[in-house]
């Protein structure tokens, strides 16, 4: 076998791991979960002023950990596992669903408790939902542009 052909087999194997959809959507899931949990923890930390110092420190530490997980997910999606157009649409739908459920939970918590923490979390969840809807709209637009260009090129090449 020629060396370039042997090398190509290796690359095809490497591509399988690099293009894993599970890994990409896993990072999207990590980003959503860590954002929601961090929001709740930060809201509690900033609004429950009567908590003992140890509890305040614990909330602070949990907020930092949550933020680190979010940063890791953002970095991985930007540099290591970027989303393709179709993946972005799936990720956008995941984000909208997750943010809507989270926002609904925050609405319920606000109605039941009416505390300052629930208002803070509700505001953040609405911001998350708005961002998710905008991201999904942008992903759909980009997907449609690429599909249109693809069809145009296929027609030209068939002619």
């Amino acid at each position, binding site marked *: 076998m020629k060396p*370039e052909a042997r*090398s*190509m087999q*290796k*690359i*095809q194997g490497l591509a399988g791991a690099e293009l894993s959809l599970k890994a990409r959507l896993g990072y999207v899931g990590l980003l959503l979960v860590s954002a929601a949990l961090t929001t709740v923890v930060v809201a509690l930390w900033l609004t429950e002023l009567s908590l003992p110092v140890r509890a305040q420190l614990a909330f602070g530490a949990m907020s930092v950990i949550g933020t680190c997980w979010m940063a890791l997910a953002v970095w991985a999606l930007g540099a290591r596992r970027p989303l393709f157009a*179709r993946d972005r649409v799936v990720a956008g739908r995941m984000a909208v669903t997750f943010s809507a459920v989270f926002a609904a939970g925050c609405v319920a918590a606000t109605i039941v408790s009416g505390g300052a923490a629930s208002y803070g979390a509700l505001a953040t969840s609405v911001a998350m939902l708005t961002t998710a809807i905008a991201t999904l709209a942008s992903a759909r637009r980009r997907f449609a542009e*690429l599909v249109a260009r693809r069809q145009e*090129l296929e027609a030209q090449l068939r002619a």
Partner: protein
Amino acid sequence: MSTQKLNDPRADELLAIRCQLGERAAFAELIGRWHEPLWRYLRRLANSDQAADDLVQDTWVRVLRGIAGLRDAARIRPWLFGIARRIAMDRLRMHYARPAADEGALEELASPEIDAELEADLAVLESRLATLPVRERETLALFYLRELSLEQIATLLDIPAGTVKSRLFRARQLLRHEFETKGAI
């Protein structure tokens, strides 16, 4: 797909768009289409099979991670060769640890657009070469693609220089006939 369609820049753009959409099968096609030209290009720069293997692997990792962000899919060829060239230049810089004054010379070694066109043309040329008889094909490839002299080829093949000349003459005639019947690059 025919060689002419493969060499059509629109076919490359289509493949790039399918990759950007996230079609896994398109990546296998992209690798199948461009791996060998990239490997040969890097082999020429690095002068060793092992180094070419390493460089081409780094190139593909960067391509797979970067193609989603490629703005103009029509520029896939120079983009691919640009990445390969940057990786090879970085490796050469590290290897030789040259002073900054020499960097200009390294930059001038190759231009991605010219390299992409050249590799595409070489791919077509090599496909046409494959139709020639073994002895003529080997002589022509050594003379034009590997740039060996008549004497070097004669030594390598253990034949007189006059035989090398006659094989080259016959190979050129056959290749000309091949291009006349199937069309130029």
